[in-house]
């Protein structure tokens, strides 16, 4: 029995990758799976700090559209409709994230709307949404945690302020929006002495 050549290469690649020792001695990229419905970090969503695998990621409050949070204010009294449909509310949201099959409840938790839901079924607060994003974007999550992806402010040798993925990327349409650039420099030929033409 022989495997097709490309498949063999793939297998070899996977084996070699998994055998390569990890560059950093940081904890595993993904926290261990939790039981269904368990709340990982039981904090109010506006708490600016979160804990993931023993690391501190101080972040500002999540960038909610004004007046939408807590979601339970409205959703608690509404019946949950799991079917895929045109929404009557939140019509400003245009879902342009990943494949077309993507749907609200891939990320939002249908029962407790104030939480997000990992693939494992674990619930995370909005202030830890990076863990949700990190499920698919593992490489970005890794880079973000060490400060290579995304913006950090504060002190290079001390306390740092992180930003949530959602601060820069609209989670429903994550592609970075173009910006208007600030003015170009003055060309040398146009730099003149004051009072000269």
């Amino acid at each position, binding site marked *: 029995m022989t495997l097709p050549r490309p498949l063999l290469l793939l297998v070899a690649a996977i084996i070699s990758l998994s055998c390569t020792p990890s560059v950093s001695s940081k904890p595993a990229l993904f926290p261990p799976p939790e039981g269904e419905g368990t709340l990982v970090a039981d904090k109010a969503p506006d708490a600016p700090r979160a804990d993931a695998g023993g690391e501190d990621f101080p972040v500002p409050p999540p960038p909610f559209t004004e007046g939408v949070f807590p979601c339970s204010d409205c959703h608690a009294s509404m019946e949950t409709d799991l079917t895929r449909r045109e929404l009557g509310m939140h019509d400003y949201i245009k879902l342009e994230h990943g494949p077309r099959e993507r749907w609200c409840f891939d990320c939002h938790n249908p029962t407790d709307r104030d939480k997000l839901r990992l693939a494992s079924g674990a619930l995370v607060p909005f202030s830890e949404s990076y863990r949700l994003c990190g499920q698919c974007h593992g490489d970005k999550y890794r880079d973000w945690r060490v400060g290579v992806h995304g913006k950090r402010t504060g002190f290079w040798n001390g306390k740092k302020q992180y930003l949530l993925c959602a601060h820069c990327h609209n989670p429903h349409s994550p592609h970075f929006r173009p910006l208007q650039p600030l003015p170009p420099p003055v*060309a*040398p*030929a146009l*730099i*003149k*002495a*004051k009072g*000269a033409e």
Partner: protein
Amino acid sequence: MRLFIDFLLGSAKQMLKGNRSYWGWVAFLLACIAVGLVGYASQAGSGLIVTSMRDQVSWAFYIGNFTFLVGVAAAAVVLVIPAYIYQWKPIKEIVIIGELLAVSAITMCLLLVMTDVGRPERAWHMAPWPIGRWNAPSSLLAWDALVLNLYFLLNFAIVTHLLFRAFTKRDYSHRFATPLILFSIPAAVSIHTVTAFLYNGLSARPYWNSAILAPRFLASAFCSGPAIILVVLQVLRRYANLEIKNEAIWKIAELMAYAMFLNLFLFGAEIFREYYSATEHLVFTQYVFTGVHGHDTLVPYAWASLFCSVAAFIIFLVPKTRRNFVTLNFGAFLIYCGVYIEKGIALVIPGFTPSTLGEIYEYFPSRTEVMVTIGVYGAGFLMFTLMLKVAIPIINGSFHLDSRRAAEAGIVQDAATSH
């Protein structure tokens, strides 16, 4: 010492004596200086912004002229070598004039550097410890300042000694002068080499970062310096009653032909390397000779320079044209133009164009820069003129210590030195 004061007073009197054309020439030079002062006043008032230099082209006309004049100053050596090493009589008398030119040229160089820097009043920072913080051995400008000042002092000392001795009708002191004269030969080479290294050592500027830059500097200097001297000698022969043999002038012209051959050969070697290998560094040479993206301000100058140099080479190579004073002077003029453009414009500016970040800023000197440069040339030529005014009568024997004073001072005059 009393004698030296006599010499100085006599020299001052010599400078104040002169016919109408002398005073006309002096007035013209003073006018040039006035133009320069007006230009410099505006620069001192507003800063170097009144020049066309900007961050993209941060050295230009001043430093180009400086480089050209360092070559002129260095060229005195062309005359010193045969005169003192081979005891070749016809040139020996001319050496003083070459050295006076060197002294004047160095003065112009130093003036140009001072006009180019942003804070001239801080020039003393360049002095060695404990006054300043002379950055030796790594800064080439620090070395350049040193060798230029040394060369200035050296030539000034030699010329003063030769003239003072001639003034008192004595032969020059071999123990004092000969070592200095011999030292002036490597010193002349060094000023131009160090100036070349100033550009040469900058890996950021591939146009200059070529091993044959210093040899090219020397070769072109040995063309341009003597070209000025050739013309000066003829002027002096006609108007200043100084005896200069044709033979001497032709010999200088012959040396110039060899120097120009070397200059053109090195240039060709450079051009071959650039165009055949055609790396990304070719763009600087293209900017000079063909223009880049329609930016072609320097193109006519570059071709004019090349044309002048080649034409002058032919004139100086062919004995018939070399010995004809019409073609000879035309050739000297061509060399002067060719080298002036090459060093003054086609060396410095393309080094910066395109800039290190690829930007093309088409530099062309501003009115202020031209005015200040005219002023510097005026000052230099005024200095040269005044020194010649003293030197020529000493050389041809019409200005000397009167024999009574000499006898009082107990000087044994050597008749041979004064013709």
